[in-house]
Every structure is written in structure tokens, then in C-alpha cells.
């Protein structure tokens, strides 16, 4: 097994998994909240929020990374805030890679969750409220159980995006082996090294496999949503 990849490559793979895991875990509640507000809320600025959420999908990743650097760098206003409040530093750390992955995966995650929430018949939520259920109970007993395949699909998509994120990550936290050198960054580095190509190919296959599995899982879950909708 260990001959398949070198120690640096194994480290990159584990780092990617760690980065994508934390990115997904931390952005999921926020992603659900934003998706819920976009699916159910009727307020001024809803369209603006929608555009803001989708920006990372269409902006050049290097721009997103640059903005992160400005905002969350050591001297950036948000970077200082997080360091002072929680002792959390993003600049040139794996946490920064996770933040970049979370931001880049956010639009995909929100989109999937929003679609599944919109597929939940709001008439059922009304029925639950007339039966005495508070908003929170309606969310917990009706909305979430009916939307969970879509929520999971959103999480899987966010995770897969986080695994492969390159542009924003390299701009924001650079390419530091063992610290911020994720799978994608590792492949890029190997391609610049003479004789590194075979190893790069192996890493590429690993990342393709992970992406494919994630897509299959999200497709299966999406089918569950449309089946529940057809019922």
C-alpha cells in the first residue's frame, strides 16, 4: 500500500480529507439556514443573498482566494477578529484551506438543500402547525425528515468540492507541504518536479475515484427526493 504513494502524498490525501470534512461540517448548518431562508423566506434582499451565495461559483477562484486573504489574513479585519475571539488563525494554516474549501463548496451545498426544501410541500408544514406544532417542531418532525436526502446530497457535493479545491486555496494559504498542501496542490507540485508525473497520475486517479463516489452518492440521494416528491 505504502508503495502506491509516497509519505508526502499520503499526507496530502489525509490533509484533503481533513480539510473537506471540517469545511463540510462547519458550513452545513449555515448552508441549511441560508437554503431554508431562500426556500421559505419572503423578504427584501432575498435575491441579493442568492447572488452573494452563488458568487464563488462564477468568480475566478483566484479572486475568491484574494478576497479571503484580504479579509481573513493575519492583518485582515475578520482574521484579527477570529484570532482575538477564538485564537483561530486561518492564514497559511490548514484551517485556511478548510475555510477556502467551505466557501467554494457553499453554493453547491445551498443549491442542493434549497431544491430539496422546495420539494417539501409547505401544505404539510401548515397542517403540522394547525396540529399545535411550533416552528421548531415543524422543522424537526416534518421539514427535515422529508428533506434529509437533499441535505445529505448537498453535504456530499460540498465535501467533494472541498477535496478538489485549488485556486482559492493556493491563493489564500499558499502551498506548504504538510500544512496546506492538499491533494490538488500536491498534484500541481508533482507536475513541476522532474519524474513526478507517475505519482501525480496516481493521485489524480485517487481524486477521480473520490469525486465519482461522491457524485454517485449525491445522485442516489437526489433520486430519493424526487421519489418522495412524486408520492
Amino acid at each position, binding site marked *: 500500500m505504502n508503495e502506491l504513494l509516497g509519505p508526502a502524498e499520503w499526507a496530502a490525501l489525509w490533509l484533503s480529507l481533513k480539510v473537506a470534512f471540517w469545511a463540510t461540517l462547519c458550513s452545513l448548518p449555515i448552508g441549511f439556514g441560508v437554503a431554508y431562508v431562500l426556500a421559505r423566506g419572503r423578504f427584501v434582499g432575498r435575491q441579493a443573498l442568492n447572488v452573494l451565495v452563488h458568487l464563488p461559483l462564477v468568480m475566478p477562484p483566484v479572486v475568491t482566494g484574494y478576497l479571503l486573504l484580504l479579509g481573513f489574513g493575519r492583518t485582515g479585519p475578520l482574521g484579527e477578529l477570529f484570532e482575538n475571539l477564538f485564537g483561530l488563525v486561518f492564514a497559511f494554516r490548514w484551517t485556511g484551506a478548510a475555510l477556502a474549501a467551505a466557501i467554494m463548496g457553499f453554493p453547491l451545498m445551498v443549491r442542493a438543500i434549497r431544491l430539496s426544501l422546495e420539494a417539501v*410541500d409547505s*401544505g*404539510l408544514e*401548515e*397542517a*403540522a*402547525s*394547525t*396540529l*399545535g*406544532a*411550533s*416552528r421548531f417542531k415543524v422543522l424537526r*418532525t*416534518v421539514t427535515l*425528515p*422529508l428533506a434529509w436526502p437533499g441535505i445529505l446530497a448537498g453535504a456530499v457535493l460540498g465535501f467533494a468540492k472541498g477535496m478538489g479545491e485549488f485556486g482559492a486555496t493556493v491563493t489564500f494559504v499558499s502551498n506548504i507541504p504538510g500544512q496546506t498542501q492538499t491533494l490538488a496542490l500536491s498534484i500541481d507540485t508533482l507536475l513541476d518536479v522532474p519524474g513526478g508525473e507517475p505519482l501525480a497520475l496516481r493521485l489524480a486517479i485517487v481524486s477521480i475515484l473520490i469525486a465519482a463516489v461522491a457524485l454517485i452518492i449525491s445522485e442516489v440521494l437526489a433520486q430519493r427526493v424526487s421519489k*418522495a416528491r412524486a*408520492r
Partner: protein
Amino acid sequence: MLSVDIAKTFDGFTLDVAFDAPAGITAIFGPSGSGKTSVIRAVAGLLPCERAQVTLSGVELTHLRPCMRKVGYVFQDARLFPHMTVQKNLRYGGSHDEEAVIAVLGLSALLDRSPATLSGGERQRVALGRALMSAPELLLMDEPLSALDAPRKAEVLPYIEALRDQTSIPILYVSHDMGEVARLARNIVVLNKGQVVLSGDMEDVLSDPAAVPFLGVRDAGAVLTGRVVGHADDGLTKIETGAGAVWVPGAVGRAGGTVRVRVPAQDIILSRTQPEGLSALNVLPVTIAALERGGGPGVAVALQAGDSRLLARVTKRSCDGMALQKGDRIFAILKATAIASTDVG
């Protein structure tokens, strides 16, 4: 006692409705688009309105969220939770009177089923049971039978009648089916284009000649309440009403039981003399109480029959030809088969 006062402006449509509803069933009747469903959605707190004052037994519900209002709402499309069994659906809002509700609505065989496997009639029975088990202080029913075919309707109607007779809470029952309304309701509120055009006791409203234009020619007609005398061998049932004995088709009710008979206004024939050699079975001596000329060719004639009232609709030509006047003593002729057996119950 429920008091409702609602105002809301939609695009090109204004809802402005106020009425009181005592215990028992109050029908909200009117054509499609008259605002019936909006009214009960507002009562439930599901429809934000400019004004939506709702008072139930002296308690103001106006500013309460839907979940705090203790209303049971039976939706037209049942709205059972697809990811729960029938039993979990029933218990969602509470387990009030569980055994009795399950027994009365005949649900015991359905408890472990998924809503997706139920027939339309079964779904509505479960939806009704679910609303009742939440111990509502007010029941709102939005055309609970309209999605059902005639046999399914006939299956669910007796359950609603049993409910009406056993409960003491007000029930608002939205419908555009006069047969259903006449059979179930004690009071009626007639809506047209977002306004209340008639309201009050069922028998008074339906025998009011001024009601004909609002109810429509086909749906106008008085309701008689009577006692079943017995069933004849030839398939007819004799009912003793305040207007006299009336024969209706089919074996209706139980002997000694109280039933209602809806007599469509357009199926009554008026005669100056007591007719003989006629196939119609029901000939009732009546006195003309009022005449109301409509905009069309018809005249609505209110008839006092014993201590009951009937409503007939004849053409202006007949009315003028017979020189019908208020106070005239004439005969009302009613074909037994004109009374649909679904209108008796």
C-alpha cells in the same frame, strides 16, 4: 360561539366577511373563487390579513400563531405526513380520545399503513381523526369530500354526521355542494365575491326567496326536518315533516329517527286546485308567504306549509297566469323522485 371578522385585499378581489357561528356545523357556501377557503385559512391563522378578528368562546385568537389556536383543520387534500404511519399521523397533535376517535372513524385496521397506500376516503377519515385527536376547540373543514367520488363520499358522510351529533364545538364546513351542506349544517353563511350575502339558520336561509339568486337556480330549495315513519315495501320511505307527510325514494334512516329532506325549488309544481289522477305522490296544502321576482324569467315563491316553509321557483308567465298573490291558499306538488336520496340524511 365563534365570531369572525376578516378583511383582506387580493389582486382585484376584496374579502370582507363577518359572521357568528354557534356550536354545530356552520356551512360556508359559495361558488369557486368566492373566498370560502381564504376565510377558514384566516380563522386558522394561516392567511395574513389586514383585519382578522377571531373570537372563540370569549377568547381572542386574533394575535395567536396557528399552533396556539387549538383549531383542527381538515384540508381538502388531507395532507397526511407521507413519512409517518397512520398511527403516527393520528398522534401528531395529541392522543385526545384516541380509542373513541379510532372506533368512530373506523381506523383500527389502518393504523400501521403508510398514507400512500390509503384510498381517498380513508385519507380523509385519517385527516379528520388526526384533527380530532389534537383536542380542537374549533374544527375547520375545507371541502373534505370534494376530492372523493360518490361512493367514497357516501362512506365518509356518516362519520361527519356522527361527529356533528357528538361534539359541542363549532365546526366551519366549507363546501360548494348544496346537497352536502343541507344534510350536515345547522347554519349557513353564503359568500359571493368575498362578501357575505346571506347568513343565519339553515332552514330560514334556504326558504328565503331572496336567496335564490345567490344560491343559483339549481341549488335553491328549502330543507324540511322530519321523523321517519316507516319504510314501504315498494322502496319508499315516509317522513312526517312540519309540512305534512312526504314520501321519498329509498330506504332512508331508521324508523323514528330524525332526517332532513332537501326539496329543490325547481322541482315543486304549484296548483290552484287539489290535483287528482296525478303520478306525483306528495301534494301539500300551502299558503303563499312571499313572491320574489328575479331578473330572469323566474319567480321565487315562499310557501308556508304547516309550521315549515318551502321554496318554489316557477316562471313569471305561470305566476301571472295563475295570478298568484301573497296569502293565496294553493297546493305544492312534489315528485318523490325529485328528492335525491343523497339529499336525505
